[in-house]
């Protein structure tokens, strides 16, 4: 099994070695709590807030139906609903942006 060798820096030393695909993943950053995203694909069955509403963790923003369950989608921070990106009946993909909250 001959494969390409590349440099891998460990503690300041460059080693010539094989680097298997996916073994050096880059960091995607901490999740942005002002963005509420779909944790699962599904459809929006109800929206319980309007833009401008003041919300806090525990409040229900909308209901996302997936796997035959109505999932209550709540904000991760307190703030004002600054933008609703979906409407009732929309189908959404995993990680799709649903609601933006601007912190207080």
């Amino acid at each position, binding site marked *: 099994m001959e494969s390409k060798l590349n440099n891998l820096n460990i*503690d300041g*030393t460059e080693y*010539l*070695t*094989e680097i298997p695909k996916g073994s050096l993943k*880059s*960091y995607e950053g901490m999740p942005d709590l002002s963005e509420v995203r779909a944790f699962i694909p599904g459809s929006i069955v109800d929206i319980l807030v309007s833009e401008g509403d003041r919300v806090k963790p525990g409040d229900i923003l909308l209901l996302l139906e*997936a796997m035959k369950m109505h999932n209550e989608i709540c904000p991760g921070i307190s703030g004002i609903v600054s933008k609703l990106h979906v409407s009732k009946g929309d189908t959404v993909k*995993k990680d799709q942006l649903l609601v933006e909250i601007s912190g207080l």
Partner: protein
Amino acid sequence: MSIMKSVNDFLARLSSKLKGGGEIAIEKQRKKGKHTARERIDELLLDPDSFLETDLFVEHSVKDFGMDQKVLAGDGVITGFGKVNKKSVAVFAQDFTVAGGSLGRAHAKKITKVMDAAGEAHIPLIGINDSGGARIQEGVESLCGYGEIFYRNTRLSGIVPQISVILGPCAGGAVYSPALTDFVFVVNKISNMFITGPQVIKTVLGEEVTQEELGGAITQASITGNAHFYAESEVDAFTTLKKLLSFLPANSNEKPPVYRTVLPVNPLGDDVIPDDRKKAYCVKELIRGIVDASDFLEVHERWARNIVVGFARLDGKTIGIVANQPRVLAGVLDVNASDKAARFIRFCDSFNIPLLTMVDTPGYLPGTDQEHAGVIRHGAKLLYAYSEATVPKMTLIMRKAYGGAYIAMCSRHLGATFVTSWPSGEIAVMGPEGAANIIYRREIAEADDPEAFRKKKVDEYEEKFSNPYVAAKKGYIDTIIKSSMTRETFIKALSVTDSFEIGHKHGNIPL
């Protein structure tokens, strides 16, 4: 009934049972490139005519959903005992030709019966999985069956070796019996393991993925690490399985069988690793230069390739080898390498197999990904496994033994019984470059010629620590040897510890 009549009646019943799911189902099985369950046991696994079948006449007693009209030969699983290279084993093989090999109460009871017998007879258990999953008509009885199998897999763990061969679908809860066993074999284009199949994934996540991509043999052997051995055909899988068994004792109260000593094909010389420490080499070539007949059976050949583990013999005695692989990721330790080595070490400790650890590692793989994947938690398993092991633990430092990875790779400090180094060994907190950069950070920055100053300090650190003598002075290394002396040195070390204590110590929890 006259005796002859009863014999004829018996023969007719027997012949019907032995046909499994019948000609059409068997033809379907063959079209998929698969052997029948009976062929797998009788022809591929066991010594000729050694199979002693049990429970061929077991039938289910389900009445719902028209099941009372169906007689399932052997209830879809063949169980019994036999010999592999003259050593007894217990075996079960699910028969896909009978109701898709689905697992119901009677089917599961046959399996648990042979598992209990393996435990009582202190012999290895080999399971051949080829099943569509739970027999839905039986409801909770089927789930009960799986649970009772998992329970026994766990209770037998570390007492008798348990090996699973996945020769067909093995989906949903069914995957957990193999996952609890010591070794899992998969075969290209035949094996499939997953918790939720492609259809469910498509419905829930909208992802299109084939069965092969999701949980085929290549995936299980190279991405997930669920499978320890990958084969291109069923025949090859059983050949490797028999070889694996040859290295193992029948149970935790025995030592592995001892074979005649055979010299390596290409014994190690004195110049076996590159002069430049930054250059890669394949550690497997060195292993083959040390062990009997250059014969090394690698476990997890395709997964976490930055560490190499497997079985070999030294002076005819089985040893388990754990070696950093500089060829891949410079031989760093990471999450997967730690899990792979730790579980292998614990298997060897369970079954009285001495360990030989071969060290050439620059440390741990840096990165957010590794930290967030829990390299602290996973790395700790390696420390635990080595510290816990009471089999003879022999260590060879080939070159780099840096920092925490030096400690983790069976150092004296974790209870190694014998530690040796080649003259090329470098035991230090880190490589000379990194060390000089840290110790002389300010001086380098303030120097008239920072690069020249840095190089001077790197050389100084290298001069001081890039050798095995500092550690040898403290007694952390027992001997320093030329690489050509490796084999005979370890043969001597192994014979010193020949009468090490054996017996059941612990199970082999999946790590």
